[in-house]
């Protein structure tokens, strides 16, 4: 397999209400940032994969509404396709296109503005309309059900969850792109009001407005044109059974996705062989659960960007993790670790992490 490289990355600033920009404008902002980072122009991009969710955008075929903003140049025969799911899943689509040999460069772009809809109703619509939706659940109350099972079965305390929040918020405070940039003490985390027991307000990630873009390229192009290629060495994507049919104290899908990625990258001791990890934790307990399934034990090397607890735009967050991992490998992250040679990025989508992607990246 010819290696594929990440040659350009771009993110908007994440915020609670980016009223200054439409979602297409955010896409434009991330796309131009990624092109500038790659030292390329839009003419170098021969195809595009977008990630979006029509419910979040409040219209159908929302990807077409961002085509102009990401250089699709409708009418000139450039290929543009859409993934309904996390941006890291769109990255797999882009990765496959490069591997097909038909494309040299792929732009992967993800966006969402949850400030513009009603998140409770939008995430209530994740549930089956016949057997579940009318009960009134949403992403937070469903996660609370998972949290209670996981915390009990693995004997995890409030303090352990609080420590995740404190750690990620401290890192997020250093990240100029983050949405929440205020550090938190463990006392503040533990005193935070219950949102949906056992989840407290501070256990839940923000829902941000924002966009992120990634430019992928085949090896020959990357070696010729890129000042800082980051190589994809391993990848796995796996979907789990529905909520009521899986053990919520574990994530088999993540475990299997990680196994595939580790096998491709030749990793058998993840904690020793991976220098930094960027995880998609929508809730504090999820960082602990995802780490367990990744078989990664060094929490001080996890989510140096601040993670989703500091900035989380739906659809965008997995792609943002790939970007933050790439920046660590380039030595350009806001909270840079020393001697980063290999990084892991993780994306997830669906209720309580039904589907997961795992990426192993190297410089």
């Amino acid at each position, binding site marked *: 397999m010819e290696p594929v490289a990440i040659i350009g990355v771009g993110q908007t600033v994440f915020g609670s209400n980016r009223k200054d920009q439409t979602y297409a404008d955010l896409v434009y902002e991330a796309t131009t940032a990624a092109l500038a980072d790659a030292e390329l122009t839009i003419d170098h991009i021969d195809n595009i994969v977008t990630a979006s969710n029509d419910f979040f955008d409040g219209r159908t075929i929302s990807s077409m509404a961002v085509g102009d903003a990401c250089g699709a140049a409708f009418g000139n025969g450039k290929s543009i396709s859409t993934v309904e799911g996390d941006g890291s899943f769109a990255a797999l689509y882009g990765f496959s296109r490069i591997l097909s040999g038909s494309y040299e460069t792929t732009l992967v772009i993800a966006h969402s503005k949850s400030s513009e809809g009603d998140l409770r109703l939008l995430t*209530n619509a994740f549930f089956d*309309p*016949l*057997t579940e939706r009318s*009960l009134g659940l949403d992403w937070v*109350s469903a996660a609370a*059900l998972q949290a*209670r099972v996981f915390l009990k079965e693995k004997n995890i305390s409030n303090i352990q969850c609080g420590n995740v929040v404190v750690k990620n918020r401290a890192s997020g405070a250093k990240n100029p792109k983050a949405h929440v940039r205020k550090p938190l003490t463990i006392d503040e985390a533990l005193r935070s009001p219950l*949102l949906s027991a056992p989840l407290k307000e501070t256990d839940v990630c923000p829902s941000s407005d924002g966009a992120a873009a990634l430019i992928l390229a085949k090896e020959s192009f990357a070696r010729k044109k890129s000042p800082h290629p980051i190589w994809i060495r391993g990848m796995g994507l796996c979907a789990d059974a529905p*909520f009521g049919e899986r053990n919520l104290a574990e994530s088999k899908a993540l475990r299997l996705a990680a196994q595939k990625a580790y096998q491709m990258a030749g990793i058998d001791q993840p904690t020793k062989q991976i220098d930094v990890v960027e995880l998609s934790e929508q809730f504090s307990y999820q960082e602990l659960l995802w780490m367990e399934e990744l078989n990664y034990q060094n929490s001080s090397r996890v989510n140096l960007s601040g993670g989703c607890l500091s900035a989380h735009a739906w659809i965008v967050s997995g792609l943002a993790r790939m970007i933050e991992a790439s920046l660590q490998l380039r030595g350009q992250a806001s909270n840079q670790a020393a001697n980063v040679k290999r990084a892991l990025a993780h994306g997830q989508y669906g209720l309580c992490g039904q589907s997961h992607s795992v990426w192993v990246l190297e410089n």
Partner: protein
Amino acid sequence: MTTEILTHPSRIKVPYTWSAGETLSRFFKALRDEQKILGIRCPRCQKVYAPPKKTCGTCFVECSEWLEVGPSGTLLSFTQASYVSPAHRSSKPFFGLIRLDGADTAFFHLLGETNLQSLKIGIKVSPVFAEKRTGSILDILYFRAAN
């Protein structure tokens, strides 16, 4: 000069009439007419799905053997949503994840006549049926601690 940013409030209102299909129709009819909860068994892995599904997600074969499950079950998890949501049917609702007796899968429902202190993982719960039933999941009003 700063541009004044205008917004456009609107809403999407599209009526849907989802067919329950043959499998869930039989389940909903049993709720409505007999106050019974039906499950279905996969002929290959023997897993009992409640609510029933036409196909087993693990084996990719059609489920065919119907059986009555519950109506009591075991509470696998629970929460109380303390926030306000337009999707909630009442203020600060309790949600449970319940495995009915005889079933292998769990499903969501509301919990009633309860508080956070008295709920525990593993307690037995049983359904309270609505007096007026229409053939929907809300024909069960909620589950409450058994006895």
